[in-house]
């Protein structure tokens, strides 16, 4: 298979395989544990390469994954001592493990097809060169098949334990109380995470794999009402990042893995900005709307006060409103316009008056509801005003 489709196949399967367990990592708030695992497996990978050499066997994936699980156990054991708060145990253990790998690789004549830089970012182009041979025929890059198997395992695992993962991730105590003891499932899940990370190591390296695990899932989280849609969106974003990232790298003549991870970051920023309801733009919009509706209430309240109490015409004119409430002229005009549109206030020849609708609006904001509304009913708002005119 030629190089470009090989690279794209590896990129897409790697991204998709990471995106599935990434959803549960994000929901469990364990993104940094993924970072830890991605570094902890490195010495295992190095040792496996030293022992097994170029001989490609499944042990090259499973062996190092054991170290990832070891990290998870070690961190939990350290947490149980209650000597440290927060994630200090993680920060101590994973660099220590990682450094073992760095020391072995950095020795000259180690004879390993790895350098310190590919460790961090991987080398997808190199991975694409190693084609799988079946009966002497090259059937595609080996890394693609490895990641395809891992992707299928992840999908199968998630489908099989979907209900159980949903429950134990959300409410572990309740899960345990109904007999879904979560620790076995938890370690099984962490095993799949470890294997996924080891598999992805060759293509994207120890640092960028975290981006593939976390960013698509985090973007999907902002858009999802249900777990199913979060999983689908996460995979979709990962695949998009892989394809766009590849072509970006191709035209920029840059590292594919870097461009892929960059794309996951860009997609995340876009969802963060534009996600409906939870996104920043929509939050700003909601806040602006609240500001207007609050100002509207304030205006109606002000008018009620002056219509019911001391009637000062100057306070109820457009000019007076602006001066009394100390609004910027443009903002005051806007609030008055919106208030008129909503029918909370009305304009008569000597200024603005509250309507019954306006009084109701204000009574909803008051603790003692009857006050404003009663006044409105007894003494009338606009109605009273019209009455006076008749």
């Amino acid at each position, binding site marked *: 298979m030629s190089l470009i489709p090989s690279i794209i196949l590896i990129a897409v399967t790697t991204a998709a395989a990471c995106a599935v367990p990434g959803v549960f990592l994000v929901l469990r708030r364990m993104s940094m544990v993924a970072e830890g695992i991605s570094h902890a497996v490195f010495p295992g990978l190095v040792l496996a390469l030293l022992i097994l050499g170029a001989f490609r066997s499944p042990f090259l994936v499973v062996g190092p994954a054991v170290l990832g699980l070891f990290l998870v156990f070690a961190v939990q054991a350290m947490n149980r001592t209650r000597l440290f708060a927060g994630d200090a145990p993680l920060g101590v253990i994973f660099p220590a493990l990682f450094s073992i790998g760095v020391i072995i690789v950095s020795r000259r004549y180690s004879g390993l097809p790895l350098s310190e830089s590919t460790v961090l970012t991987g080398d997808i182009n190199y991975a694409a060169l190693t084609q799988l041979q079946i009966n002497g025929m090259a059937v595609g890059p080996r890394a693609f098949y490895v990641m395809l198997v891992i992707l299928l395992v992840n999908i199968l695992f998630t489908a099989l334990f979907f*209900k*159980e993962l949903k429950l134990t991730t*959300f*409410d572990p105590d309740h899960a345990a109380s109904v007999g879904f003891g979560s620790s076995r499932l938890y370690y099984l899940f962490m095993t799949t995470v470890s294997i996924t990370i080891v598999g992805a190591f060759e293509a994207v390296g120890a640092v960028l794999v975290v981006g593939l695990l976390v960013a698509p899932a985090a973007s999907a989280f902002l858009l999802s009402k249900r777990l199913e*849609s979060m999983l689908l969106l996460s995979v979709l974003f990962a695949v998009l990042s892989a394809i766009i990232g590849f072509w970006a790298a191709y035209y920029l003549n840059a590292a594919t893995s870097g461009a892929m991870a960059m794309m996951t970051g860009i997609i995340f920023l876009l969802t963060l900005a534009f996600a409906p309801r939870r996104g920043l733009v929509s939050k700003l919009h909601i806040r602006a709307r609240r500001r207007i509706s609050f100002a509207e209430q304030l205006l109606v309240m002000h008018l009620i006060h002056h219509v019911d109490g001391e009637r000062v015409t100057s306070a109820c004119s457009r000019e007076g409103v602006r001066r009394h409430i100390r609004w910027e002229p443009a903002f005051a005009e806007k609030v008055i316009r919106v208030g008129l549109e909503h029918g909370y206030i009305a304009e008569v020849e000597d200024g603005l008056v509250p309507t019954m609708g306006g009084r109701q609006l204000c009574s909803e904001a008051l603790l003692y509801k009857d006050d404003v509304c009663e006044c409105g009913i007894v003494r009338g708002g606009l109605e009273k005003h019209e009455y006076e005119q008749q």
Partner: protein
Amino acid sequence: MDILKNHNQSTNKQGAGSPTANPPALFVRDLTVAYNRKPVLWDIDLDVPSAVVAGIVGPNGAGKSTLIKAILDLVPHTSGNVEIFGRPYKEQRLIVGYVPQRESVDWTYPITALELVAMGLYRKIGWFKPVTARYRERAREAMDQVGMADFADRQISRLSGGQQQRIFLARALVQDASMYFMDEPFAGVDASTEEAIMAILQELREQGKTVFVVHHDLETVRRYFDHLIMLNMRVVAAGACSEVFTEENLRRTYGGRLTLLDRAVDAIGGIKP
């Protein structure tokens, strides 16, 4: 069924012996829980009859939540023995429902209210099997019971605190348990939700079920509970609410915490030192 009828007796008599013909709904002996050898609960003995709404009160740090979690095997206990209707908890899991504190879960989690309620049925559904329409229907009924039928498809982050508490309750109701443990079901809910929840708990009692409620508001203790457990790392007093909810016991439970005590004494009303 006559097991369910022998309620309203005071269970203050300790050492009533091991469960025999009429085992109490909840039987606890010598339960001690320690974190790193620092005891949190000391030698708890409890006998609670069935078909009561039992309050669990005590100051902060008294171990109220820990007591529930220890009974449900969620925290390991150093010593002790727990029996539900005369048999070990492990065998009785199916008939025990649990409502954790509302703050114990992440409400931004991407599921709908109906899915959350359906979680109460997972045990019945069993491993690997999906939640079918029949179970969803059952969950919908429970949502209706707590007045939340209109919110089935709403994402749980878009519910108010009181609504979240109601669907937590609905999740427990679908379990159709005989005994319920509820950790502060009234925390952060408005008065109407509190009344609604209390009405449901009373209905459960009418059906012969036993309900334990961790509670903070001493003013409503008398109105809400027929059985009371007063806790401060050990059981200060336990028994029929009318008998144990006294100023003397409150003083022993809350110690020197005066402001609380004053309110408590107000709550008892009438009893003068």
